[in-house]
């Protein structure tokens, strides 16, 4: 006869309500892990999209995401000529804020060369950019539709395709356009500014600048070899895809990772304290029953089993509810929440350990209950 189960069944409403409260807390823990995973995933989405082996940026910088980087527009031709490089593409990146239907819209513009690496992937609706000017592919996260026109700077762009899940490390949805359009958006001065420059005797700077060049390398050649070749140019720096990803995860999202990690740890400690208090209170409520059980001959293991089983049941049900809740509402979070099965299993393991440790207080109380206290009024 499973006494823990009988007790839970008898007080099912109260127990489930307790589990629900706990599930909210454990759901927050799970969502924190999911937010961190989403943060890393978001940061890497943009870096992984061009399917590059090498990133070429301005010398002395860790661009184009960790630091600003500007290199001449013709760098792509130089890189493409290096032995082992099979394809190369110049790219521009820029955060933009605009308005759509009176609402502020933040997006991250990616400029790329048609027919070269760096274009949009995961197109779920419409088509890729087919013309050299004034077309764009936006992410679904922007909320725009194909065929719609979006005003950026002085130019209106027609949305011809939609991608899914393409965001920058800050969570802003991506908008792809041609390199030329992005150069104009990023570097070209407005006519009034040009007039002002001319009036003061300065010549407007060239807009033929890019933030980075991505290169794909032949499978027979190690990317590091090409990186060393590129580094011989004084005005360029290069890093492999692995280095770029490491840079992003370790520098760009490192603080967020630590912050979320610490917060998750605090939430786990809070969960442990709450579980311990709930188990202790549940045991306190059963002092007379436990004393009676001891008096009629129940061994300590039966009593301990009852306390631990209830604690574990609470943790498992609380975690289950919490996971179910987060799985169903994760898409409503402002930032991507990525729930990975291994994270869920690891957290479930941690919760199990927390439940076992937390039940120690209740077990200690249960073992101290004097069977003689069952006697008398």
């Amino acid at each position, binding site marked *: *006869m499973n*006494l823990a189960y*009988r*007790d839970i*069944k*008898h*007080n099912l409403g109260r127990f489930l309500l307790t589990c629900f409260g706990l599930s909210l807390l454990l759901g927050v823990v799970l969502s924190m892990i999911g937010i961190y995973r989403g943060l890393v995933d978001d940061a890497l989405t943009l870096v992984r999209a061009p399917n590059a082996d090498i990133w070429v940026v301005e010398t002395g910088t860790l661009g184009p995401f960790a630091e600003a980087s500007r290199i001449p527009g013709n760098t792509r031709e130089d890189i493409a000529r290096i032995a082992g490089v099979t394809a190369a593409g110049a790219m521009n990146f820029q955060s933009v804020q605009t308005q759509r239907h009176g609402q502020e819209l933040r997006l991250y513009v990616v400029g790329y060369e048609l027919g070269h690496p760096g274009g949009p992937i995961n197109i779920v609706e419409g088509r890729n950019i087919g013309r050299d000017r004034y077309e764009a592919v936006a992410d679904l996260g922007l909320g725009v539709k194909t065929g719609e026109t979006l005003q950026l700077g002085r130019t209106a762009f027609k949305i011809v395709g939609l991608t899914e899940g393409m965001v920058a490390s800050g969570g802003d949805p991506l908008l792809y356009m041609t390199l030329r359009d992005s150069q104009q958006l990023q570097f070209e001065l407005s006519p009034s500014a040009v007039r002002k420059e001319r009036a003061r005797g300065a010549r407007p700077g060239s807009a033929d600048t890019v933030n980075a060049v991505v290169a794909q390398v032949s499978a027979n050649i190690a990317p590091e070899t090409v990186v060393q070749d590129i580094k011989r140019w004084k005005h360029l720096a290069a890093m492999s895809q692995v280095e770029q990803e490491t840079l992003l995860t370790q520098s760009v999202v490192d603080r967020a990772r630590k912050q979320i990690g610490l917060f998750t740890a605090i939430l786990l400690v809070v969960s442990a304290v709450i579980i311990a208090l709930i188990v202790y209170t549940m045991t306190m409520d059963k002092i*007379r*029953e436990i004393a*009676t*059980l*001891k*008096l*009629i*001959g*129940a*061994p300590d293991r*039966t009593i301990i089993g009852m306390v631990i089983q209830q604690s574990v049941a609470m943790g498992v049900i609380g975690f289950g509810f919490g996971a179910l809740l987060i799985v169903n509402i994760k898409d409503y979070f402002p930032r991507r929440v990525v729930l990975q099965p291994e994270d869920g299993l690891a957290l479930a393991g941690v919760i199990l350990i927390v439940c076992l440790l937390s039940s120690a207080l209740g077990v200690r109380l249960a073992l101290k209950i*004097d*069977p*003689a206290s*069952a*006697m*008398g*009024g």
Partner: protein
Amino acid sequence: MTTTPQSPLIELKHISKHYGEGETRVDALRDVSLEVYPGQVIGLLGPSGSGKTTLLNIIGCIVEASSGWAKLDGDVIYDNAWMKSDLRRLRLDKVGFIFQFHNLLPFLNSMENVSVVLDLAGVPADRAKQRAQELLEYLEVGHRRDAYPAHLSGGEAQRVAIARALANNPRIILADEPTAALDSERALIVMKLLRKLAVEQDAAVLAVTHDEKIYDQFDRIFHVRDGQLVTED
């Protein structure tokens, strides 16, 4: 009244129990000797704090005596500084407890409250259920087998508690104020039931009570005064 067989089920010799030492020492029991034989129903009377419950606790293997010698159904459980180990098992096998407020487990129904004792003793579930049903029928509460304690009347709950106390066929039944929560009529029914059980199952019943209405149901009555036992046949 029953005849007195040769070997007592409960045998206490010079049992003393004190709490604390020095100025704070309280003597709960002083040099108590007692023999209870199968089939006997014994009453323990006395004012609050006189030591009745302490005596019941020592016989029930819940509290260790400070000195003396005690034997239950042939097993020496205490001999001065020595105390038998695994008294839990002995309690499970040989002693049945009946409480003032029945102490049924609120999360188990009547059937489960009785069979839990058998379950703890390792009896297979089907046999435990069968035995529990028999006992509930015997005590005329078989129709309440699925009811939880909160839905039982005082008399029904006490009968289920008695069924639980009898589940393992104990030779010794210890009752702490078994009729305190019952009216006169039900108190008499419960005491007659205990007497019947003592006779039919060859068990010894030791009941602590303040209830004067049931005095005539005891074979022998002992008064406990200041930790000492005074016979009143």
